[in-house]
């Protein structure tokens, strides 16, 4: 079928297959999976010595402008149909649960401010966040618990998931629309109300570091 296939017998134990062959392998694995596959998982499934990261560069280029695209999602890679062809897919369209305005806002706040505590979300929205809203986002696997804050009470934080990035076609949380502008405008600062003291000044840097480490 494929002329480019090397005979398995010709490969020595430590020679990786030729790059063209590695590209085919990455292609096959990504096509077979609906979920993003990490470079690490790719390497684990490919023969010893393979370099999936390089193969991905080639593969991504190969699919430029085609009906399907090789996209990066967080730490993983996936193949997705080109967005301009969505109109052909009425049959495949999944009706997502309609999110309430509160849920959408809460999701955006978590995405832009992560890792963020419930109290911080409430401070930003000026209203308490219902358990149901958080549960719904957790159920959809768009958010998950992050690590606890190093503030009194060690509250849990929320961060967005790879599923969230996948759903909105984002490579990482850094690619959220308008993120840079919001940061430059100081609107992502954790600014406590005056009179409450600057309890979380030092946290602020951590917050941002977290965001980029996790992203």
């Amino acid at each position, binding site marked *: 079928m494929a002329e480019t296939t090397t005979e398995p017998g010709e490969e020595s134990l430590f020679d990786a297959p030729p790059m063209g062959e590695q590209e085919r392998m990455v292609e096959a694995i990504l*096509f*077979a*999976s*609906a*979920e993003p596959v990490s470079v690490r998982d790719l390497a684990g*499934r490919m023969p010893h010595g393979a370099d999936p990261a390089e193969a991905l560069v080639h593969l991504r280029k190969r699919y430029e402008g085609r009906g399907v*695209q090789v996209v990066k999602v967080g730490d993983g890679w*996936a*193949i*997705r*149909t*080109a*967005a301009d062809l*969505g109109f052909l*897919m009425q049959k*495949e*369209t*999944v009706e*997502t649960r309609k999110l309430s*305005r*509160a849920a*959408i*806002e809460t*999701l*955006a*706040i978590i*995405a*832009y401010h992560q890792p963020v505590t419930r109290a911080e979300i409430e401070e*930003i*929205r*000026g*209203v308490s966040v219902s358990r149901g809203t958080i549960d719904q986002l957790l159920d959809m696997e768009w958010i998950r618990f992050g690590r606890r804050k190093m503030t009194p009470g060690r509250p849990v934080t929320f961060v967005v998931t790879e599923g969230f990035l*996948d*759903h*909105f*076609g*984002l490579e990482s949380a850094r690619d*959220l*629309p*308008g993120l840079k502008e*919001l940061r430059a*405008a100081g*609107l992502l600062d954790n*600014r406590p*109300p*005056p*009179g409450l003291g600057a309890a979380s000044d030092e946290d602020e840097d951590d917050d941002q570091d977290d965001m980029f480490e996790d992203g």
Partner: protein
Amino acid sequence: MAETEPSMIDVGARLAAEALIVDVDGFEGPLDVLLMLSRTQKVDLRQISVLALAEQYLSFIDKARDLRIELAADYLVMAAWLAFLKSRLLLPPDPEEEGPSGEELAAHLAFQLERLQAMREAAAQLMARDQLGRDFFARGITEDVTRVRRVSYTATLLDLMQGYARLRTKDDFRPFVMDRDAVFTMEEALARMRPLLGFAGGWTDILSYLPEGFTTDPARRRSATASTFAASLELVKEGHAELRQGDTFAPIQIRRKEGRDG
């Protein structure tokens, strides 16, 4: 700044306030109401008059009370706080007074409104993106990774020799140990291990040296295990063997020490 006529603002504010009153349930808390009211000022949120906003909010609350609309406690707390803020902003600052100034509080409120507005816009931008399952799609026919479990069997030369010896002695040879009681002495264990050690090759569990007939009955097995262990230590002491154990309670393994003449 305010290019509209004062009367127009009043009309706009009134209309907004009326809309609020009919549909107070549609608001996501007092901050949301403030944000809505701030739009009537038709200015950048950074230049908003917090004083005017406080007045608008307080009149909104008054109207709601007149119409006997029940408001959630949040709205009343905000009203009280805005009344306090208003007095702070209007009265000259008291040098004795502790805490943040009216300007600081007003600036923070303006910041909160701007931030909420920014988050709303960000949420709208996010939801306007192409979405998986709506605009772009994942693979329809997926192939799961099947897990194949392969069992690899191993045996040592000693296993083979013991197996064969077992067969050759089955019918007419009763192992000498059978005639004794449940005790297997260390001398016996040593005598047994010395010649066998050479055949085992690499690391071997010392329990594989237990003699035939001493492996099932618990009392016999205990005795043989103890003597085999003691014999192993003896062999190590003599310099003929090495012992190792990977972990607490892990099998104890023995092998012949190379380069020494047994």
